[in-house]
């Protein structure tokens, strides 16, 4: 059973994704802020991290940088899930940081999110 960490500050959306991944047979850990996410990542060692960008206190990009600095979490595949839009600046920054995929929440069905995560884990 694959373990997935969802770092998302919006509780409603987080719960929706949690539900979907649980339905599809994942073990799901939820963190509701960037800081909480970093702690969970190093403790739980998930197979994949689903990460939001726009979060208060610590944004998604900062979370990635921290994950990449920690030997224990460096190699966990990350999929960004945001409503920030398709501005190339963000996508390029994400790629530069070694992110597997960049998904736009409202354009991607929950089913497709699962498929992308599946692919990221199996690579």
């Amino acid at each position: 059973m694959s373990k997935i960490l969802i770092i998302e500050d919006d509780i409603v959306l987080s719960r929706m994704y949690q539900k979907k991944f649980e339905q599809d047979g994942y073990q799901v850990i939820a963190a509701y802020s960037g800081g909480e996410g970093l702690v969970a990542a190093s403790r739980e060692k998930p197979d994949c991290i689903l990460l939001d960008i726009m979060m208060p206190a610590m944004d998604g990009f900062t979370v990635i940088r921290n994950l990449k600095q920690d030997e224990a979490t460096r190699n966990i595949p990350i999929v960004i899930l945001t409503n920030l839009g398709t501005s190339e600046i963000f996508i390029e920054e994400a790629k530069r940081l070694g992110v597997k995929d960049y998904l736009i929440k409202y354009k991607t069905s929950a089913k497709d999110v699962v498929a992308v995560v599946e692919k990221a884990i199996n690579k």
Partner: protein
Amino acid sequence: MPGEESGDNLKIVLDTWYAISKIIAQAKDLPSLWEPLFKVVLKALNVDAGTLMTLEGDYLVRRVAIGMGEEIMKEPPIHQSQGGVSWSVVKSRQPKIITDLAKEKIASKVLAKTMHSLVTVPMMVRDQTLGVMSVFTRKERNFDQKDVNLFASIANQAAVAIASIRSAELLEENRRRLAELEALNELSKSISTLFDFEETLFSIVGLMTRTLRSDMGVLVLYDHQLKLLRAVKPAFGLNDAQIKDFRTRPDEGVTGQSFCKGIPIRLNRLDGETQQVLRRAGLSEVKSILAAPLKVKSQTLGVIHVFSKNENNFHEDDLRLFMILSSQAAVVVNSSKMLREIEEERKKDSALLASIGEGVLAIDRGGKIIMLNPAGEQITGFLEEELLGQTIKETLGLWDKDEKQIADQDSPIAKVLTEGKKVTLSEIYLRKRDGTLFPAYISVAATRDADDKIIGAIVVFRDITHELEVEQMKQELISIATHELRTPITGIKGYLDMILAGDAGPVSGELKEMLEEITRINQRLADLVDDLLNVGRLEQGRIEFKPVAMDIAQLIDEVVKELQIQAKEKNLELRFEKHEMEKVKADPERTRQILINLIGNAIKYTEHGSVTVTLGKNEHEVIVAVEDTGIGISREAQKNLFEKFYRVKTEKTRQITGTGLGLWITKQLVEKQGGKIWVESQEGKGSTFSFSLPMA
């Protein structure tokens, strides 16, 4: 003549001539000429009294009377129509002798009572009668031809003197007027006074009125809406009611004539029509008028007048001076009109302006500041006196939006001074007295003289710090709102997908249909948020276009394949015959959006038949056409089709949802890439939307 006289008489004549020439040589002006002249005359002719009248238009005006009491000087000038001895001499140009005054009709009552005999002679110079001289005796005397000849020659000598002194005075008067003109010229050159239009105009009108010995001065401007010439403030010597009521049709009276024909007019006796116009304004006492058109370039703005309560008030020379003065007035009026126009244009830009004071700064041809208004002082912190004579560069500076100082050759102000075209800039920074920069909206226009020559520029500016803050807040709000809206939409979509996928147990029948309906509604909401976000981005220029040389045929093929599912759902045939085509210079992502919008629309508004995409070209552009067999668009609706939030409202479109933003967005995306978009359609038969993109 003197040569024919006897020795005694000749001596008297020569003595008299000598005396007169001395008097004339010493006379400074006309008043100082009369008395000494007459003393000589009285002595030479051995008479009791004498008088001299000069001809002023239709009047004979008494200038001096000796030996006949003070009373006579109080008598009014004698009008032509009163006749009398003097007037008969003026008209006949012949001397007249009257031995018994009691038997003659003479104009002056005082003289009729006290004098018995007289000789009146005309004062002639170069075939022109300047007036008459008369001598009187209390007792009866029979003047002989010798007396008359002597008197006539003295009178002509006096006439020469009068003419020469008059021309000297005229010269002096002209010199004085010239000096005033120069002063006025200076006045109008310094644009600072141009801003006190009323004051400047008032001083011009006042100067005209005074200089031309008139009682009133007023200017009328043509009102294009009312098609009337109406008096405007400031006027000299007219009350408010008279200004309000002094208006005429452009074909009426002296005002209308001057306006229509564009010529100055001197009216020493009023015609009936002009009298009527004046009567309407309560100006019946006006007896003579000078009127001149206010002309700038080839345009006549109105007419300027001076009024006199005297008939025959104006000479030919007056008209010339009046013309010069009125051209000055025209410049001031035009400048005021121009400033008003600039102001109105700016008012269109923002309703905020009404409450915000605008800085107004004027510079001369050399770029030196000659004026700063109080609002400008408040905005910049500079006092007008601190800026006078300096350039904008030295003081307020001029920075671009990256806060880099703008070089002289790129300065919009320099451009206006050389090219004369109006410039408006919204992203520019100026410096306050304390050294800080503030974002400003500036508008620069040239000021011109009557010959259309650029004599300086007016810079109107305002501090837009607050406006920018508001704009930024608005953008942030839109961004936050759309982001916040997207989150719940995503949540709903996620749960609906799961339910419909059977994750929460089997779903079928009516429940399934309803859930699918909710999914469509949710999608509509998502599209609307998307469109609104795009509108905002397009309006703020926040959408980047990265044009590359791309294969449009390939892109169409991809999009058509993507949309085949939608077409199949409606049983429509979606066709595109891919063939070789020149590459276009466009942003692939934006172009994809254009194609999705147009082909998507075609599918949406077509019930039966097909949607066909074709690819063509002209000399420089590739043209994509999307043809459908749908409901078509009425001619009326075609006009508004590309407008924001416009939706065609018919029985058939009622059931088709949309935001009314798609075609507006599409049009922006096409035009921002240098292309054009258009539609051909027939109701009930179908539509063809076409757009062009430049070849790479």
